[in-house]
């Protein structure tokens, strides 16, 4: 029952949102909805830490025949982080999004994304995963173009076409896989593939199609081009939501898919995963350092940080997967917060061009501190969450004898720091260039500070309480590494 809540709460808001209530009620209702979602997520992680796994079969069809929703430790962890990010996004939206957008169903589409993300994290069936992807994508298409300014529409066309192509890859892969195996339930698939023996090579074409679909959604090299071309166009808080949640769903699916299905043929897949992760890390960080727009710089960093998670998956050891999971969670907080600060700068100054900004530190030390906490967390400085994530990833890489990749990861960390410092100096520290008209748009921003403060606090807390969280992630990774447990639980055998 508890799993239905993740879909029920946002869906309820979407339905209620169609009624002509005054905007104030809708705002309060949106806050209540994310609050309910958060309570549900906390409840779930509490239960999961005792039981291990929870499943629900809607319509009471037994596992391989009907749709099954399954949550294990990894899902619960990511659901909790999604819920926290959603709370702060809604808080931030209340003050930063303009009234016409709020009146035209902004929150409904936002909750559409949250349903899709929540659903993807608990889907136990490939086709169900595809449907959640589409729910999430439809809502994100609309949010991307919501408001209809010219750059938004341009970004939306690119985002739309490339994401649709990724869906076609995914569905074609699903169709071929079903044709060969006769099932789409992840646990059942894993079980049947393990009985195939050497014949599993015939599955490779369909698996490649599915993995390409995930890689486009997760913005991995060489499929990331839609991301930097579109993420800087919508309303800043929408980019924050996208950056925090959407690519991470692609990566979550890749982890789930790898640990249940691809690992049967790891001799073929492992080098690809490691290679793609490493190149994504390097390309993302290099391209980021040549950008002169606040949000564009951050968009390229998404690609780089997704690469870190993927190399953690590629190491395929207990500590590697635990590090990857921790890093995924940390990145959702830190990345969203840097985007939120960008949103605040945009609201205050009306521009995000690094060349025309400056002196923001004098204007608002609070926001500067909020930015630097998340930025240094992304760069991996102690005692923030990024340090623990990177440390455990690189350590596990050295233990798994992937020395070169670990060195590359360290090297990329330095460049991340360089980019973050560049933003810090250009936006917050340097005096405004002569001849550039500097102005300030005042307004109430208490809710915005709270929203950003929650996320910054989470980065600090994840750093300070690193040990219990890493322990939890290690348990989650242990579940991932022994898929028999998952299969037995889902199929009831």
């Amino acid at each position, binding site marked *: 029952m508890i799993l239905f809540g993740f879909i029920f709460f946002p869906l309820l808001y979407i339905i209620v949102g169609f009624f002509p209530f005054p905007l104030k009620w809708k705002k309060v209702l949106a806050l209540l909805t994310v609050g309910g979602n958060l309570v549900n997520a906390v409840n779930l992680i509490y239960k999961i830490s005792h039981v291990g796994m929870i499943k629900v079969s809607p319509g009471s069809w037994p596992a391989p025949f009907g749709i099954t929703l399954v949550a294990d430790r990894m899902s619960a962890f990511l659901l909790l982080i999604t819920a926290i990010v959603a709370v702060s996004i809604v808080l931030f939206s209340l003050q930063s999004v303009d009234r016409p957008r709020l009146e035209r169903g902004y929150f409904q589409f936002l909750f559409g994304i949250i349903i899709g993300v929540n659903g993807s994290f608990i889907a136990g069936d490939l086709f169900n995963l595809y449907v959640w992807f589409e729910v999430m994508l439809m809502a994100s298409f609309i949010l991307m173009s919501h408001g209809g300014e010219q750059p938004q529409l341009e970004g*939306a066309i*690119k985002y739309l076409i490339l994401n*649709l192509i990724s869906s076609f890859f995914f569905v*074609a892969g699903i169709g071929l896989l079903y044709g060969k195996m006769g099932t789409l339930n992840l646990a059942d698939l894993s079980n049947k593939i393990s009985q195939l023996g050497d014949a599993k090579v015939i599955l490779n074409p369909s698996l490649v199609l599915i993995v390409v679909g995930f890689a486009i959604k997760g913005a991995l090299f060489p499929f990331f081009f839609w991301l930097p071309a579109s993420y800087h166009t919508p309303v800043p808080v929408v980019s924050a939501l996208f950056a925090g949640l959407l690519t991470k769903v692609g990566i979550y699916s890749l982890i789930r898919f790898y640990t249940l299905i691809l690992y049967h043929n790891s001799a073929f897949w492992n080098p690809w995963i490691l290679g793609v992760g490493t190149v994504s890390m390097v390309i993302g960080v290099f391209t980021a350092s040549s950008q002169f727009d606040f949000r*564009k710089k951050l968009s390229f960093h998404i690609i780089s940080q997704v690469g870190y998670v993927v190399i953690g998956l590629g190491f395929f050891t207990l500590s590697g997967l635990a590090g990857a999971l921790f890093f995924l969670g940390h990145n959702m907080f830190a990345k969203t917060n840097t985007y939120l600060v960008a949103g605040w700068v945009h609201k205050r100054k009306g521009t995000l061009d690094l060349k025309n900004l400056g002196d923001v530190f004098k204007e608002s030390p609070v926001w500067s501190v909020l930015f630097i906490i998340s930025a240094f967390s992304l760069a991996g400085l102690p005692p923030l969450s990024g340090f623990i994530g990177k440390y455990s990833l690189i350590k596990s890489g050295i233990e798994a004898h992937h020395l070169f990749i670990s060195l590359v990861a360290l090297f990329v960390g330095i460049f991340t720091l360089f980019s973050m410092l560049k933003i810090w100096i250009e936006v917050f520290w340097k005096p405004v260039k002569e001849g550039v008209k500097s102005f300030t748009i005042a307004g109430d921003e208490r809710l915005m500070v709270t929203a950003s403060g929650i996320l910054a606090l989470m980065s600090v807390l994840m750093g300070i309480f690193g040990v219990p969280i890493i322990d939890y992630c290690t348990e989650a990774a242990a579940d991932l590494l022994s898929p028999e447990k998952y299969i037995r639980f889902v199929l009831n055998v």
Partner: protein
Amino acid sequence: MELVLAIFIGLLYACGVYLLLRRSIVKLILGVFVLSNATNLVIFLAGGITRSGISILQDEVVVDKSNITDPLPQALILTAIVIGLGIAAYTLALKYKYYKVTGTDDLDRLKNTDQR
């Protein structure tokens, strides 16, 4: 029959990719529709195509199992078609709005948000 359908799907994919590579946005969108239908047919073909009776089985009737089509792929396609319809409607609306704002149908004008 499988072979004919397979070749036809290949043709559809070829047409879709060709349309995707055109400069006009309308043709790009048409290409997306063609690809989406080709993908639906892939699922249909992968499920196996046997001309046969319905697959609703009664307990007492003994049926030759090789003579029934698997109904699941058809259910999957139905879902995929519905999703495709929604996306098609949205894409066309987006294109219309873009045309109203900029007055152009040229993909090469879509350069303003790219990384340079």
